[in-house]
């Protein structure tokens, strides 16, 4: 704010919105929240409701669906989808599409595997180089979109095809490149956080969350602005802590299905990928909601012309989101490689991309730009993973694939329909 302001603008009553505190404030806050929900500001409610309903249905249909064994399977299956969807949200926020995110991920994981296996690079160097390749790919596609002006659908359709080819050439006739068991990368999806560390991380996480929320509220109070009552903050922290504790506890149960006199391996603790997911979520959420860059991403997605007139370099924002998307796709590809302990010649092809975009959209992100949050990727990705996991054993025998596809489609539609009806019923 320039010095000019004070001279131009009358300062009537600074701090005219004196905040109230205590239970009265809580009541007012709740009433306001409910009114906003009735007014159509639903946030993540529909996606969460959808997730709960679908999980409940499968828990009934399928015994053992909520066993520690299957919950862990669910999480590690969801991880690559969620990571990819997080990156896609940036592109979708600008109203663009990246059809090649899947094959970019496949390509980057192939690059990583080739560097490790054929060129004897260490796993971390291979990983970094693959990530760099992903970002570079994104920069290239972003450049073609922002500076040359080719529609992103066409650019990424072309790279979708081309990267499939490159991956095939890299992996070559072997069909798949197998990542050595000894590589720490395998641990990501197949290794478990020790129990004590899991609980410590949870405590740190909850404390961090609480600190940020309280700090926010205090800051607003200092500036004389209304803020969320501390009771609400306490309640949110409590819910977060409870959910986290339930999850950490369930992941602490031994998941080994059979033991015997000879072997006594235990599978205990949450998979490392959970830590990765939490970090990625925190970083991108922070960037989108609390930095200038994030603000500009929303602005360009909402009204490109207005953003340009506000002095935002739109092309730079546009290039950056493609870079983020491809970089996240690369990470997603590596997570998938960790899951499969190998890189296939068709890695990232098929429905990978469609499912990730579907996850973002089910979570609440708009394909037309300007609306979407990182949590959408998490919730939508879980919905998709629950559906595919839940379906994978439901129908047996010849042609089971056909019926499974049909039912998967139907369930997806039901989830989305539920979501739409919740949204509509409340919206004006």
């Amino acid at each position, binding site marked *: 704010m*320039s010095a000019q302001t004070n001279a131009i603008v009358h300062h009537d009553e600074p701090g005219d919105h004196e905040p109230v505190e205590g239970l009265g404030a809580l009541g007012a806050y709740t009433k306001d929240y409910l009114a906003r929900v009735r007014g159509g500001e639903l946030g993540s409610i529909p996606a969460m409701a959808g997730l709960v309903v679908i999980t409940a249905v499968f828990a009934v249909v399928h015994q053992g669906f909520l066993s520690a064994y299957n919950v862990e399977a669910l999480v590690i299956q969801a991880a690559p989808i969620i990571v990819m969807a997080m990156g896609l949200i940036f592109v979708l926020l600008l109203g663009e599409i990246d059809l090649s995110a899947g094959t970019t991920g496949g390509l980057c994981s192939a690059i990583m595997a080739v560097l490790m296996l054929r060129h004897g690079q260490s796993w971390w160097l291979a990983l970094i180089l693959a990530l760099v390749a992903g970002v570079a790919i994104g920069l290239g596609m972003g450049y073609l979109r922002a500076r040359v002006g080719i529609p992103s659908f066409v650019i990424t359709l072309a790279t979708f095809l081309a990267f499939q080819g490159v991956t095939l050439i890299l992996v070559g006739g072997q069909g798949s490149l197998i990542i050595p068991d000894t590589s720490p990368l395998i641990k990501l999806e197949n290794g478990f956080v020790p129990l004590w560390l899991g609980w410590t991380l949870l405590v740190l996480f909850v404390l961090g969350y609480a600190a940020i929320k309280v700090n926010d509220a205090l800051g607003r109070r200092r500036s004389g602005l209304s803020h969320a009552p501390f009771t609400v903050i306490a309640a949110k922290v409590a819910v977060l802590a409870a959910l986290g504790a339930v999850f950490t506890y369930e992941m602490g149960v031994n998941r080994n299905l059979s033991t015997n006199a000879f072997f006594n391996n235990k599978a205990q603790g949450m998979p490392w990928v959970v830590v990765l997911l939490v970090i990625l979520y925190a970083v991108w959420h922070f960037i989108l909601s609390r930095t200038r860059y994030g*603000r500009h991403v929303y602005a360009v997605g909402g009204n490109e012309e207005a953003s340009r007139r506000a002095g935002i370099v739109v092309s730079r924002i546009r290039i950056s989101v493609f870079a983020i998307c491809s970089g996240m796709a690369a990470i997603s590809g590596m997570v998938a490689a960790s899951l499969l302990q190998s890189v296939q010649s068709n890695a990232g092809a098929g429905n990978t991309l469609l499912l990730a975009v579907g996850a973002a959209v089910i979570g609440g992100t708009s394909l037309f730009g*300007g609306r979407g949050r990182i949590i959408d990727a998490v919730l939508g990705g879980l919905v998709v993973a629950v559906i595919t996991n839940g379906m994978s054993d439901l129908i047996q025998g010849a042609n089971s694939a056909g019926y499974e596809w049909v039912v998967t489609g139907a369930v997806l539609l039901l989830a989305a329909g539920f979501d739409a009806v919740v949204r509509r019923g409340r919206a004006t």
Partner: protein
Amino acid sequence: MTTHPTLELRGVDKSFGPVHVLSSVNFTANAGEVTALVGDNGAGKTTLVKCIGGIHRVDAGELIFDGTPRTVQGPRDAALLGVEIVYQDLALCDNLDIVENMFLGREEITRLRTLDENSMEKLARQALDSLSVRTVHSVRQRVASLSGGQRQTVAIAKSVLWKSKVVILDEPTAALGVAQTEQVLDLVRRLAEQGVAVILVSHNMNDVMKVADSIGVLFLGRMAAQVKRKDVTQTQVVELITAGRSGELGLSSAESSGAAV
């Protein structure tokens, strides 16, 4: 004065495909003065403003800032030259709230390089209050839900908050009520008093006659005349607007009939 005008346009031409919109337009705006730009609908006022703001590139002619010719490649260049513009079509991001729109592109940040939402919110509230907008329930409201006048106020507040050398307002009071219009005219005068070169585009002759120091009249894409406020009457200005000439002022009769098109 021997100093240069803050902004000077010389022989500006602009056409869109087959349509010639501006033909060798000359125009000046001095620091500390309110320069009105008037003209009939479709005369080319907004196009001229957009040329200054770098939204359109001029086909020919010069933009001279403080005596130095400059090329303005885009809105960023204009902003760097100290030009602030409220566009007629407002251009707000509907998916952002009032505070976010008002500080777009110039967000305040804390030492940690995060957005300083608190000070932005406070300043936004003050700016709106000072423009007599009392019906905005919350500055955290999406601009999509604002009334026409509220949107306009946000756009005006957005542009006058910053230290700039030239402030251009393209029909800022079109959607405003009586009290709000007063406030904006007041603001215009205060800006000029601070040494800013203010350009006001308006159809309201009363307002123009009230606040302008100098008046430029566009007629079918030509500058019919730029005159001192005190040298003309309202009737003369209206004549210039509708016919391109008034007595010895304005275009020659040949020009005024065949102008631009």
